[in-house]
């Protein structure tokens, strides 16, 4: 039953095969569409409910009020004046984020969007604190 060098034929076969590994930084890796990467933010959808902030396990999100607020829409005759829609920013701390995408799931207005970005490493700490406006 014992056959010395049992793997011989397999090894010889592989001499003529393409390697299974790829030269990663030069050759892009294949990413599936539901990969959980960097979270993007759409400010005009956000209503500032702070659900994402509360649910985040890593305390990676902050939703502050924007510095510049849009002006209230011009009042229409005969109707009560409409208050200005508040505008919110999003600060994503990429070094805190665990990429679980729970915030995307919990967001009632779909203001947070999951992207397939994953090459987020940086030597500059400022790069890791993304401020979406």
């Amino acid at each position, binding site marked *: 039953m014992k056959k010395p*060098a049992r793997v011989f034929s397999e090894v010889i076969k592989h*001499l003529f095969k393409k*390697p299974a*590994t790829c*030269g990663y930084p030069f050759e892009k890796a294949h990413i599936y569409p539901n990969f959980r990467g960097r979270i993007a933010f759409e400010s005009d959808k956000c209503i500032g409910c702070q659900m994402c902030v509360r649910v985040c396990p890593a305390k990676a999100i902050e939703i502050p009020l924007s510095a510049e607020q849009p002006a209230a829409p011009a009042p229409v005759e005969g109707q009560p004046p409409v208050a200005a829609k508040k505008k919110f920013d999003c600060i994503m701390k990429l070094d805190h984020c665990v990429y679980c995408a729970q915030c995307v799931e919990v967001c009632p207005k779909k203001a947070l969007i999951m992207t397939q970005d994953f090459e987020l490493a940086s030597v500059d700490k400022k790069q890791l604190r993304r401020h979406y406006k």
Partner: protein
Amino acid sequence: MESIIPLAYLIIFPGFLFLAVYGMFLQWVDRKLCAVMQNRMGPPWFQPFADFIKLLAKEVIVPDAADSAMFRALPYFAMAAVITALVSIPVSGPAALFSYQGDLVAVIYLLTIPTVTFFLAGWSSTSPYSTVGSMRVLTQLFAYEVPLMLSLIGPAILAGSWNISEIAAFFTAHPVLIPSQLLGFLAALIALQVKLERMPFDIPHAKNEIVGGQFTEYSGRLLNFFLLAVDMELVVGAALVNAVFLGGSLGFAGWAGIGVFLGKTLFITFLLALLKVLMARIRIEQMINFCWKYLAPVAMAQVAFDIFLKFKLG
């Protein structure tokens, strides 16, 4: 002028420079072949050279408990012994640079010196891992030395000479006899694999057992020269097996001779790489059993067969 030429031989070809560059090249070939057989990419061609330059730039740390002078001198001893061995082995032509009757035995002993320096290196480092590693080096030395010597004696008996160049010339003259040395050739290859401490016989520096083995405490330049000595040993070992079993340069000289030499050493490297990927590393006591129970008798059988053949041929 006359006195410069031998010096050039020693320093450039087939001496130090050739040996170092070709050794690193063979290291790359070996790594690349293993990688391809394992379905990986493997390193780029300049990897061994890059490693060499990087290690040269690293700090050398000598343990306080170690004998500083010996610790520093040993890598150079290992390298010098390997280069000296190459002087008597034919490389580019039918004759070696400096050949004499009995140089086969001298080369075998010169090739033992690196192993002894490995032992001393591990022992003088005094750390637990290197101590265990150096004990394993010595154990391994006693296991492979006899089969290696026995397998090299066979062709010498057949050729009726203890001179490597003459053995090569004998097989060049009688190429029909080369296949009859198959058993001895295989035994010599496996013994060479054990001698070079390559997988599956890399027991003295098995990284998942005893970290770096005998080289654990070595760093920077000193480690670099030890590794270079190992690479050179691969070239010299392959050249020796080539000269003794495969008829050396087969009568070619000059550039053709170099071509034959490169081709055949590359082939031997391929066989050694194949051995490397085929098996799991065995334990030290299994290695001793293997060398004495299987390898030595096989080499012995080849010697007996060669004596018989010698009488037959007259």
